[in-house]
């Protein structure tokens, strides 16, 4: 009988065994050395399903140390179920301290958002990536897309963006909006809204991207140019919201639309919960803050 009453305490620090971490760190180092290039790595099965952030979890598990402070967000919020679950996982297997404060975190693992607060040197932002290949929906074959990257053959992407404009008058990509990194590789920023793209450019923080199912790691080192693809006559634009956050009154931030009732009542609130809470603590008030339903 090989079944033992093993608790997670019997696993290695941060779940992965050390040779696996070394393999992943090598992939990360290569990714940092070639910004925007997708490095294949021998992704492991993790104790959460593929699609739940196994790539990000593997990257975080490989770089985290006992002195780190971890923040995990999903949709910008610290308290969505999957963010709670991943944070609890690392608290359990690595016994690291966790935080919801963007400024206090040394490692921030994220799904679908970049925090509103500007990240600084020494911080690492780990993105969970479902489909790392920006050309995938134009060309389904990996053998082809790798060739296209090698030859810097990105014409197909520009044609796609052009066709968007011809048909719709807009570039109809609102999230996972392709970027060019350091003038070389076209990269998928993960399904963050294009609102967040400008934050990636010349960021002081190290940005690491992990795609578990697709077995790829890529990176944007600090102070690296990240340019959203566009045309001279159709420059890249971020989405704007007509009203400020209903709770903290913030403008120029990404908002979630919350349906209030069945008569079309809506409110817009910060997607970044930490940012919203900090602003309210500092005395900022939005139009609906007094209701207190979300405070």
């Amino acid at each position: 009988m090989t079944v033992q009453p093993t608790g997670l305490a019997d696993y290695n620090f941060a779940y992965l065994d050390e040779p696996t971490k070394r393999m992943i760190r090598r992939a990360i180092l290569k990714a940092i050395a070639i910004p925007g290039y997708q490095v294949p790595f021998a992704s492991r099965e993790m104790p959460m399903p593929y699609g739940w952030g196994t790539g990000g979890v593997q990257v975080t598990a490989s770089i985290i140390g006992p002195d780190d402070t971890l923040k995990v967000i999903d949709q910008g919020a610290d308290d969505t179920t999957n963010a709670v679950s991943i944070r609890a996982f690392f608290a359990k297997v690595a016994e690291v301290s966790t935080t919801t404060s963007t400024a206090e975190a040394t490692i921030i693992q994220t799904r679908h958002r970049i925090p509103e607060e500007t990240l600084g040197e020494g911080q690492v932002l780990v993105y969970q990536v479902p489909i790392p290949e920006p050309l995938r929906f134009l060309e389904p074959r990996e053998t082809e897309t790798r060739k296209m990257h090698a030859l810097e053959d990105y014409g197909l992407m520009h044609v796609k963006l052009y066709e968007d404009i011809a048909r719709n008058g807009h570039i109809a990509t609102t999230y996972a909006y392709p970027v060019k990194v350091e003038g070389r590789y076209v990269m998928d920023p993960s399904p963050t809204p294009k609102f967040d793209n400008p934050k990636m450019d010349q960021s002081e923080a190290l940005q690491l991207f992990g795609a578990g199912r697709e077995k790829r790691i890529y990176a944007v080192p600090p102070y690296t140019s990240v340019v959203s693809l566009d045309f001279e006559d159709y420059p890249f634009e971020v989405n704007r919201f007509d009203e400020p956050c209903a709770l903290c009154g913030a403008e120029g931030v990404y908002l979630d639309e919350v349906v209030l009732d069945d008569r079309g009542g809506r409110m817009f609130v910060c997607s970044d919960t930490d940012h919203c809470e900090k602003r309210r603590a500092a005395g900022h008030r939005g139009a609906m803050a007094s209701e207190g339903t979300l405070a």
Partner: protein
Amino acid sequence: MYVAVKGGEKAIRNAHRLLADRRRGDRSVPALTLTQITCQLALAIDRVMSEGALYDRDLAALAVKQARGDMIEAIFLVRAYRTTLPRFGYSEPVDTGAMHIERRISATYKDLPGGQMLGPTFDYTHRLLDPELAGDAAVPDAERRDGEPARAMRVSDILAQDGLIEGDCDAQTEMPGDITREPMEFPMERDTRLQSLSRGDEGFLLALAYSTQRGYARSHPFAGEIRIGEVEVAVDMPELGFAVTIGRVQLTECQMINQFKGSSKAPPQFTRGYGLVFGQSERKAMAMALCDRAMRARELGEDIVAPAQDEEFVISHCDNVQASGFVEHLKLPHYVDFQAELELVRTMRAEHESRRDAGEPMPEAAE
């Protein structure tokens, strides 16, 4: 309000508690023991070991119990556990020719050295539900052949003597690849492709194999041999200078024999598709062999015209842990991205309406 999904900590705790309650069910019914599962649901265990890629009946039974009988969930549990096991080394290649055979059939020869052995098969049962099994009626012991456990040469070796069939490929001199330790890259070699197929989803491979029989990359297959039994696993001990047997595993091996008219690359001869899986998993081994043969199209110089021949398509999508994860992740919140799409659709609708009101031509014509 969707905000209800937030504040997840308590919700998650309660959901897990409810899951445990539902898993146990009616407390007046005795709980299943792992031994009951390994003994009486043995083929479920075999599937979990094979697709979970970990040979351990007790862990597989635990996984089946924990997963409430959901096979893919059980396979996932085993895979996640497998990740944490250190790699000590690689065994010597197992010799299926020296298998302690429990079942061995060939559809290409009426009789052959070692004989045909039906073994514990469903093949000739009539699928009539048996009310006796609802109870615990006594079951007579199985008949056993006297003497040594049967050993038999492989059918492929019989054909190879006449040069009618391709050999056991060119035995690789270098170490085979390891899909659990190195990133997969296309085009693949046959070693890593077979590894992927062996842990691939039975249902997916079955459907693809079926498609080859219905004309999508037809390969005129014959079941040359299917054998099920135990083989010894030996590990080379550098300190000792020789290999030591560390245990036995039950395997199902299938050698499909396929007609081949010859091409610029190879003379007319029989070719082979190969299937090998843990436990008694005959359907899976046969499906694997058909898929393996179909994907050898490039190597044999055949035209690639059907899905089953498309290595990148088949291998990228045959893993049920990956597939179920990515399909099911759609239930995670996506409201940030949805919000972005919502804004775009609203903008485009507003533009559309203003154009229509102004009597301007619609964009189809504008292009």
